[in-house]
């Protein structure tokens, strides 16, 4: 169901497609954290829903932009973040030493550290999108260089 990367498979990336539709339900965050951690939390989610200036002003979804030349990867001194096909990075948890240089390197704030000193970064798997009730988030097919591939059926 989700985007498991392998040979010959078209890479995908998560995209905040319709920000203004967000109702602030956190279903995406709960889903991401639930999928990759053994606990229930909001903080272990790679996507973060924030209010800009309070709940009256609507929401912003902060999630990895799938950079083609990711500064977070370049900032990582241990090689824990390798460049991912289609944009973004792959985290090798065993190599992550918790220095949080990547956190500083990502301008949009898409990385944070978990309680165990490991980076939390998006895998572009699309679980969050499958739990978004308003189609704010979409999992899109991209080429190796991150260009979007249109589905022509």
């Amino acid at each position: 169901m989700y985007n498991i990367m392998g040979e010959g498979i078209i890479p995908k990336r998560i995209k905040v497609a319709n920000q203004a539709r967000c109702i602030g339900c956190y279903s995406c965050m709960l889903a991401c954290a639930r999928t990759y951690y053994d606990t229930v939390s909001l903080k272990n989610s790679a996507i973060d829903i924030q209010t800009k200036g309070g709940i009256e002003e609507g929401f912003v979804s902060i999630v990895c932009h799938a950079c083609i030349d990711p500064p977070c990867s370049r900032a990582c001194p241990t090689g824990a973040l390798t460049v991912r096909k289609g944009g973004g990075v792959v985290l090798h948890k065993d190599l992550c030493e918790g220095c949080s240089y990547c956190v500083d390197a990502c301008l949009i704030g898409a990385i944070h550290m978990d309680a165990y000193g490991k980076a939390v970064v998006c895998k572009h798997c699309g679980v969050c999108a499958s739990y978004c009730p308003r189609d704010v988030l979409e999992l899109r097919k991209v080429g190796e260089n991150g260009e979007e591939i249109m589905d022509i059926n």
Partner: protein
Amino acid sequence: MSDTVINSTSNVVYIDLTNETSKLVQRPDMFDRYIGGTGVATQLLDEGFREDKDALDPEAPIVLSIGPFSGIYPCCTKAVAMFRSPLNGELGESYAGGRIATAMRFAGYDSIVITGKAKRPVYLSLHDGNITFKDATSIWGLSSTVDVGKILRDAEPHPGRRSIIRIGPAGEKGVKYANVNVDTYRHFGRLGLGAVFGSKNLKAIVLSGDEELQIADKKDYNKQYKQLYYKVVNTDLMEKYHDLGTTVNVNVLNEINALPTRNFQQTYFECAENISGENLGDNYLIRKLSCAGCPIGCIHIAMLKKLFSNSHDVEVSDIPYDYELVYALGTNLGLTEPEDVLELIDSCERQGVDIISMGVVLAWATEMSMKEKISTDETMGVTLKWGDLNNFLHAVDLITKSPNEFYSALAEGVAVASEKYGGQDFAMQLGRLEIPGYHTGLGNVVGLTTGVRHSHHDNAGYSADQKAFKSGLSDEEIIDQLIAEDDVRGVLNSLVICLFARKVYTPDAIVDALKPLGIEKSEEELDRIGTEIFMKKYELKQKFGFDLDNVKLPKRFFETVSTNGIIDKERVENALEIYKNKRGF
């Protein structure tokens, strides 16, 4: 494991405002016995009960509780508040959504018990395990509840997933039906929690948490979550709340003669269409929001645009609306324009009052004034009449300020006001609580009279009436349904789910969803706990002085046609006897 993992789901924190101290106690046995939420809160309120101490005594506790499902499963977004109500002197119970349940969950607090009285205005900041008492003198006296949230949002660290609950001018001044605003658009609305906050010099509570919770069987949990989630979003069980929201009821209830109009003199409002959910949804709705952890998005926000000069200067405000508000400040006051209803909602929101109570109080005062039972001496020049927005706006303001005896009486609720000034026959209260917007028949009257907090959410009498209307139920069958609902809801409110999701959380679904949390309870056991909680609440009500035999039934109920025709008083009295027999009272 790291210390950021919550290691208990029975954490009760006791906060003493007088001495600025707090103490965390784990009470697993109590949570096992009463599940959580309202069951646990009832027990905690009972433990804090002191003979001869009234609702606004410093020692009177405020209890806030979540339950095992809070923040864990979809639509389990509410916290319950329990307290002694300053409005009717007995059991105070109220629910609010927004971000409060998630904030309590991830801060690791299952219940919060607040007693005492601060020396000067304070607000409480609860972040993860830390509790701080902070000076609130500079925000005491602010004219709008909404602004309090804006200021605290900037003043407090830990941005993001916080819940900010606060009172407005009405709570500070002790209006007996002052509410507590939760995250701007939700409220602990009914029965006057705001006045209890005010009496403790407690202006606000900022709650936030970023901990994580261990689940006994994570794999099964993920499965249960998924099933419940898709039941919520892919079936039509909750569609009505998502689409037009609760205001869909304006037209629905109007068509079946259930829509209280001009203080229940009619149950049909000729201008209903104009302030209906359809019109609001088509022409005023600008946004929907959700409580944290609910994919429905039932919070409907309208935009009110007001010109304030002849040169296109506009004032824009975002105003939440719901069925009960449109009834209380719209149909029941004879307001016909959506703009007028929205503006009156906005003014009540700023003051921080329960809008149902305010609407009923204004409706009674308007009828009194039109019948010339009160004069403009009492109203200080305000001429109350149906459909007249400006005078209602003045009255709302004056009720909070209470500059004379009349407005002070209005600030005590419609029961007290009508005892002083007359018009009890049309002072629309039951159990000394202003009633919600249904005149469906016997089930509603009996349900509100007998319900633990005299609310339509106790046992949904209006829904039994609608069934009776469609397919014919005997009075006894209606009573059976009320009793069953009252008990079931004791369980739902202990878990704590949002009642809009009650069709998703069927008994078998609840049993299955409890398992991965390490809680084994059969359907029969849950039934038994539901009844036990109900009985415990009634015991507490009696300690507070409630007596079912003394409830006054305003005459108006028996004069105005309902969905099921004119209700006969003797029939209601008879039904109350059946109810008492069945309950063993």
